[in-house]
């Protein structure tokens, strides 16, 4: 039905009214092309990442609370000079100010100029600026003595120093935290010129941080791709020209390609306009679309033109040549386009949202390319005056001669060819186990590339260029929680690639050290000390109670409400029992919300039992034990952690000394009641591979499960961590697309070729090409990334086409009763030439091997390999399979 009605109508329209056909196709393409008005490019890589996976949701929440987590780092200095000189400090001052005024872009600048100094003075903590003169005034006009002062302070506080000064004191860094949700490419584009204008050429400058890498990569890919793709197209033109030996033929193919590209971009523009969906923007993920469409649109045109030349050579008539070409190729070209489009539509099932837009857009473009190839192209062919006696029609091309040789060999020894092909595929299966993934953009650069070198510099000399985040939920003034956080940091800093971590625990330790005026006090107050409080209208002459939950090592530390009550006699037997008795009745214990007694215990005491209190009149009073967080009725006792009170007091002293509570915003957030219950540990680390990231995060999760108490809830996130989950999605995405595509192609081929066997045969080259490609990636250490994963698209797009052309032609030959002895040779002669020409004309993508980006190198090499493997898979594996089973196929032909 399809064959007879639609096909005949289509063909007749084109044959009878070529000019009209040209105008209609161009007109419709122009309408679609209008969508270019709304075609948008978006460089923001972060938006491409799936938004709904748990680690991304956590990351978004963290950034909402704490601001942007990813940073840009600018390090400058000179290899053999100390940074403790005036020129450097002037530069730090100027650069900090220049960056801070970019308020739409920069949330925070961390440098020597913006850091606080915590000092012990008169028994208090004094909070001031670090970058000050001898009078304590924040000013650019500091002298060498002031610089020495700053140097000494940083030397005494290595945990602060390591964040901004390099290992050998020869580089200083400025860290930029961007405003949340700003475009990273724009951020980098604006900041770099500012840095260049402020820092004079005497300084060596390095950039690092995820913001920098993520901001630079799209532009690099764009530049590289656009230059190299142009080269690839030029090479394609040259190859086509050499083989067609006619410039009009090449131009016609180019016209189809260009119009298909316009329609693809136009379609994306229309869809973006109509739906407003981000998936129809042109992003980094979409950079391979032009390449894919190029190969497919080229393929259609090559098949039609080669067939046209072949038929015209036979029939010596252009119109007949076009007619026969269309009759022979209408169905296969439709099928190849349709199956490819369906295969790309399978991207809808990808967990990477952007791939949905990719799939839909390219599916549309492929179908439009089919329409243009079967209407506009034949019309253009008809309208052109061809010389049927010219050599480009009369004489076979070089490739046609090669194809004859291939055809002969397959006919002679099909089994040998089959076994060799299968062996190669089997060998490549072995490579699957070595397949590795790398999505860390900083690893995309070759050794020696300035970006990679800067990254490595920052990794080894400064804090590191990557980070991860641990969101901590709990009372961040509770010493037990702070100790858990501290222990987590200690564990992390022992890991190889982690340079430093920062959290509220570091600040508490710093405050404690400063207040106590003692370096040994650089720790969380945690003596396990507890105060028993009481609240009564009566003064007390005697008390007794058992401490429940404290261990046997309970030690009385101090006595009485005033801590020096001379008339109080204490008994402490048995181990958890405490008794106190006033020896002078004129001095009872004041009992209104003060301490009764203090003790230390390794274990947290849970409650007080067997309470016996006698008031100053000698009367026994009823007292109850209450939780310290609850309302305290009259005649009650409760236990308070002294360590907790110390932490509370440290925060009070900090504010008293000139600090502000929002100084801690980067590490802890307050809720509406002023409780610090939401904290963040930021770990700075060296740029590591995706594999190492996965291991780090898994080990960290295991450590937390086994070592962190239930007082503290943790959630791990950060861009580096998020990549771990993204990796899984990437694999899923590739596998899903391949499986669905293979299945759909099988069904369609089964339907259109009317036979299960044809369906199975159609997917043989595709399946083998997939195995070959990924297996060899594993064997040769070529990493899978979100860039190389697009290869599946190319393999699918191209891989099935050759098989469908081959099968379609074979069925035609069966129908025409071509002798079985020569059927394979004839088949290969008919379809082999366009297949090989198609492959050769796409060899231009080898230029991607010259890209500065490793994934693009892989893309180039793998693309070439994909074309070769799918074409050879068709001309060897499929051809030999069909040759071996030709008797059976003839008997059961449909």
């Amino acid at each position, binding site marked *: 039905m399809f064959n007879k009605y639609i096909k005949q109508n289509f063909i007749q329209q084109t044959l009878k009214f070529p000019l009209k056909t040209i105008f209609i196709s161009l007109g419709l393409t122009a309408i679609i092309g209008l969508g270019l008005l709304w075609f948008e490019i978006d460089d923001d890589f972060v938006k491409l990442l799936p938004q709904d996976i748990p680690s991304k949701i956590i990351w978004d929440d963290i950034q909402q609370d704490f601001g942007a987590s990813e940073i840009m780092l600018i390090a400058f200095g000179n290899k053999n000079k100390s940074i403790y000189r005036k020129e450097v400090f002037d530069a730090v001052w100027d650069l900090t100010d220049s960056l801070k005024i970019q308020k739409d872009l920069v949330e925070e600048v961390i440098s020597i100029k913006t850091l606080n100094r915590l000092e012990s003075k*008169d*028994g*208090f903590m004094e909070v001031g600026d670090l970058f000050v003169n001898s009078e304590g005034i924040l000013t650019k006009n500091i002298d060498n003595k002031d610089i020495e002062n700053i140097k000494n302070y940083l030397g005494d506080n290595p945990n602060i120093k390591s964040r901004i000064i390099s290992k050998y004191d020869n580089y200083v860094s400025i860290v930029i935290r961007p405003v949340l949700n700003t475009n990273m490419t724009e951020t980098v584009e604006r900041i770099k010129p500012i840095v260049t204008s402020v820092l004079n050429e005497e300084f060596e400058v390095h950039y690092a941080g995820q913001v920098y890498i993520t901001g630079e990569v799209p532009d690099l890919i764009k530049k590289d791709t656009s230059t190299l793709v142009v080269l690839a197209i030029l090479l394609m033109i040259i190859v086509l020209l050499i083989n067609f030996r006619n410039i009009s033929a090449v131009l016609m193919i180019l016209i189809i390609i260009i119009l298909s590209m316009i329609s693809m971009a136009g379609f994306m523009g229309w869809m973006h306009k109509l739906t407003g969906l981000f998936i129809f923007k042109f992003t980094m993920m979409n950079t391979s679309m032009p390449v894919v469409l190029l190969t497919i649109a080229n393929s259609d045109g090559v098949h039609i033109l080669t067939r046209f030349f072949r038929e015209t050579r036979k029939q010596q008539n252009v119109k007949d040549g076009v007619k026969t070409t269309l009759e022979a190729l209408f169905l296969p070209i439709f099928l190849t386009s349709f199956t490819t489009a369906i295969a790309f539509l399978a991207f809808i099932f990808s967990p990477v949202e952007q791939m949905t837009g990719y799939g839909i857009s390219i599916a549309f473009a492929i179908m439009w390319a089919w329409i243009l190839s079967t209407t506009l192209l034949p019309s253009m062919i008809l309208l052109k005056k061809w010389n049927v006696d010219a050599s480009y029609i009369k004489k076979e091309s070089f490739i046609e001669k090669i194809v004859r040789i291939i055809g002969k060999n397959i006919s002679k020894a099909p089994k040998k060819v089959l076994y060799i092909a299968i062996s190669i595929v089997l060998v490549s299966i072995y490579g699957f186990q070595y397949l590795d993934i790398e999505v860390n953009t900083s690893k995309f650069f070759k050794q020696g590339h300035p970006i990679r070198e800067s990254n490595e510099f920052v990794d080894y000399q400064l804090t590191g260029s990557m980070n991860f985040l641990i969101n901590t939920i709990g009372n961040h*003034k509770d010493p037990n929680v702070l100790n858990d956080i501290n222990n987590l940091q200690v564990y992390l800093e022992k890991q190889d690639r982690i340079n430093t971590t920062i959290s509220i625990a570091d600040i508490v330790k710093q405050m404690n050290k400063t*207040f106590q005026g003692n370096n040994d006090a650089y720790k969380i*107050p945690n003596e396990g000390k507890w105060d028993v409080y009481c609240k009564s*209208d009566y003064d007390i002459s005697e008390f007794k109670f058992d401490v429940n939950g404290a261990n046997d090592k309970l030690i009385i530390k*101090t006595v009485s*409400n*005033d*801590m020096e009550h001379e008339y109080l006699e204490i008994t402490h037997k048995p181990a958890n029992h405490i008794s106190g008795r006033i020896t002078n009745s004129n001095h009872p214990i*004041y009992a*209104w*919300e*003060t301490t009764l007694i203090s003790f230390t215990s390794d274990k947290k005491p849970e409650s007080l039992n067997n309470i016996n209190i006698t008031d100053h009149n000698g009367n026994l009073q009823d007292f109850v034990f209450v939780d310290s*967080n609850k309302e305290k009725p009259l005649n009650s006792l409760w236990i308070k952690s*002294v*360590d*907790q*009170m*110390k*932490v*509370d*007091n*440290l*925060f*009070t*002293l900090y*504010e*008293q*000394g*000139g600090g*502000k*509570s*929002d100084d801690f915003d980067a590490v802890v957030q*307050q809720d509406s*009641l*002023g409780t610090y219950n939401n904290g963040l540990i930021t770990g700075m680390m060296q740029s590591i591979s995706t594999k190492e990231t996965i291991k780090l995060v898994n080990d960290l999760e295991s450590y937390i499960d086994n070592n962190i108490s239930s007082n503290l809830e943790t959630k791990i996130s950060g861009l580096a961590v998020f990549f771990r989950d993204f990796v899984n999605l990437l694999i899923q995405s590739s596998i899903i697309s391949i499986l669905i595509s293979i299945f759909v192609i099988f069904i369609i081929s089964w339907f259109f070729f009317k036979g299960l066997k044809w369906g199975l045969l159609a997917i043989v080259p595709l399946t083998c090409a997939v195995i070959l490609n990924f297996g060899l990636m594993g064997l040769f250490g070529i990493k899978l990334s979100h860039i190389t994963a697009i290869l599946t698209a190319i393999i699918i797009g191209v891989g099935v086409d050759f098989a469908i052309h081959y099968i379609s032609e074979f069925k035609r030959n069966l129908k025409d009763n071509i002798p079985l002895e020569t059927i394979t040779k004839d088949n290969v002669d008919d379809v082999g030439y366009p297949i090989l020409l198609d492959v050769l004309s796409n060899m231009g993508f080898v230029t991607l091997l010259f890209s500065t980006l490793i994934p693009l190198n892989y893309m180039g090499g793998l693309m070439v390999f994909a074309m070769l493997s799918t074409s050879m898979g068709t001309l060897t594996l499929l051809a030999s399979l069909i040759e071996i089973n030709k008797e059976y196929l003839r008997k059961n032909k449909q």
Partner: protein
Amino acid sequence: MKFLIVLFVSIVFSMTGKELSILMDNRESPKDVSSELNMEITNKKGRVRKSKIKSISKDNNAKQILWFLSPADDKGISYLKIEHDNQDDEIRLWLPGFKKFRRISSNKKADSFMGSDLSYEDMTSRQMKDYSFKIIDSNADIDGKSCYILESIPNGIDSEYSRHITWVDDNTYLAIKEESFNQNGNLLKLKKIKYKLIDSFHLVSEIFVENIQKKSNTKLTFSNLNINTGIKNKMFQEKNMKRLPRK
């Protein structure tokens, strides 16, 4: 008597700044005051922190203890202030966690009181001998009240301010509003004070302080004001800082 003489002189002759300040200083005040304070500190990001404080004072605020009752983080912290005429004022802080007293020395008077916009200097009375006074305007008006505008300039003392401009109600000689300028002459703080009449005494019921440069503000509201309850001098000693007063 002195007050009446000064008042008489000031009525007959135009008043000087010093005379006005004497009138302000010599207003009648209760022997002692106990009250509860609610302190709200709002930072530049709009974040509010609330505290509840118990206060007792004597001798026109020359002696004062403040105990922090809430939030839980601050509970137990207390301040003791004793002002002296001929020597440095004493301000002590009790830190219940460290079981330590800390004395706030005179050169730390610019430090913030509990993270608020009030400094220790703001909380202590100005000694007449330490300032020079000048009336800038005798017929000013604020919120419908006629008032004097008095300029006070520190005289050789350690102060975070270069001068104060105070609006003084010309009926009650109460400071209603004040602008305080830093050492660079820039406006640093704006204060507004409200009063409540209890038994013929005008007692402070609300103080609002805005730090113009830091864009933060503090509001202190006084409630449960009780006067002349017989608070003894011996209350104002360190040992009482460690224990909350019974109600």
